[in-house]
């Protein structure tokens, strides 16, 4: 479904942020990308829908070479849902309008059909009663669930999550992860950048560990957590799994 072949990206001249990334995500797979901050994981996930262009290498999504300058990138983006750390809901539109905007404008859906779809998705994320309020009137967890529904409204083939719970208060993380888990169980192809190791262990099919722009580990979760190969991965796990931070 997604394939990276020798992808490189620099910020400016000196900062080599993605180094020779080669990676494949199969249909229906749930892949967690983790790593210390600054490791390039957010950049990696943003290259999949070209929110970040790359300098060289090839990225193929659903059979389309998106790194080819002749590709209409909007066509690919329609098939790839993206959930941001800071939700990025449109504050001037109601919850339902946030969800129906792209189906109506991009997919050319009838308004009524789009609204019907919006209602179904809101029901799925448990927020049907909030359909007519504005984003600022929701909690962070609720906003993120709306953002997931908004991404799903395009009926994407892939969903990308860029640290979806990092900006949330701890008590709201669970409700978002629950929605993501349901989605994973429904067979959606997902790439998730997260520090939630519980989610990685229980829901994902593979864990990718990224450090300084390089993939150091690419393993099944049970192997990654019990037997990491790389010293830096071990160190990362020690820090993140410590019950308390100093």
């Amino acid at each position, binding site marked *: 479904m997604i394939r990276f072949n020798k992808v490189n990206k620099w910020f400016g001249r000196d900062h080599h942020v993605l180094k020779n990334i080669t990676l494949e995500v199969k249909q229906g797979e749930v892949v967690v990308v983790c790593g210390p901050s600054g490791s390039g994981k957010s950049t990696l996930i943003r290259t999949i*829908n070209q*929110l970040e262009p790359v300098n060289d290498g090839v990225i193929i999504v659903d059979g389309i070479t998106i790194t080819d300058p002749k590709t209409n990138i*909007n*066509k690919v*983006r*329609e098939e*790839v*849902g*993206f959930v*941001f750390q*800071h939700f*990025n*809901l*449109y*504050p*001037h539109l109601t919850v339902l309008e946030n969800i129906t*905007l*792209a189906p109506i*404008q*991009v997919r050319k859906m009838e308004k009524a059909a789009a609204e019907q779809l919006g209602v179904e998705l809101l029901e799925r994320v448990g927020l049907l009663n909030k359909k007519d309020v*504005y*984003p*600022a*009137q929701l909690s962070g967890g609720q906003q993120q669930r709306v953002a997931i529904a*908004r*991404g799903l409204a*395009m009926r994407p083939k892939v969903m990308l999550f860029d640290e979806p719970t990092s900006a949330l208060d701890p008590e709201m993380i669970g409700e978002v992860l629950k929605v993501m888990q349901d989605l994973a169980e429904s067979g959606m192809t997902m790439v998730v950048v997260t520090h939630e190791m519980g989610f990685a262990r229980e829901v994902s099919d593979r864990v990718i560990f990224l450090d300084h722009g390089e993939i150091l580990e690419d393993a099944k979760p049970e192997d990654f957590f019990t037997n990491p190969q790389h010293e830096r991965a071990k160190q990362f796990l020690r820090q993140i799994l410590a019950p308390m931070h100093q």
Partner: protein
Amino acid sequence: MNYHWDWGIFFKSTGIGQEIYLHWFITGLGWTVALSLSGWLIAMLLGTVLGVLRTLPQRSLSAIGTAYVNLFRNVPLLVQLFVWYFIVPDYLPEPIQTWFKQGLKPEISGFISVVACLGLFTAARVCEQVRTGIQALPRGQINAALALGLNPWKTYRHVLLPQAFRIIIPPLTSEFLNIFKNSSVASLIGLMDLLAQTKQTAEFTANLFEAFTLATLIYFTLNMSLMLMMRWLEKRVKVPGLISLGGK
């Protein structure tokens, strides 16, 4: 000060037909409003296009916006009007030139020049407000729109501009009030707006203070109603969580 007050002057005959001086104020107000509203329409349309241009990533397009703003904001309004009225028509092809100068009634050719002048001048100012409004939005708004497959036009139309306009209503209000004040340049080319009619009345009646007092009252009422209108609009389109720039 031995000033001879006479509040009855507004109802005295001007000596021309059946006219009284109050008629002058009314026609003056009419011109002021017509000039300002027409100019504002141009300013909003053109200013929005230019403001959007200035925020585009393409250098050449944003340079057009920047050049426009620098040109029109830095040349005094009076000079611009002079150019539109006296210089530009001289470079029009012959039949159009004569038609513009002599075929059209002087008020009409004057009106066209002043509206173009006010509209183009104010567009530069509106452009800057629109640009500021768009740039004040979090980068995530554009990313969210792009990630959903919205093209640039639809991103501006449905995501960026509706938010940008909401947050720039207060500075736009002051531009809106300014165009009413600026419309008094019309008298330069003989279009008798409210201020020109006031001066005229003062000159003819020698009752300067009465004339300017009435003009002050009219301008004040006009400004207050425009401000209340904009406040109402601001309230109407208000959504939770969006702040306005320089919110007053």
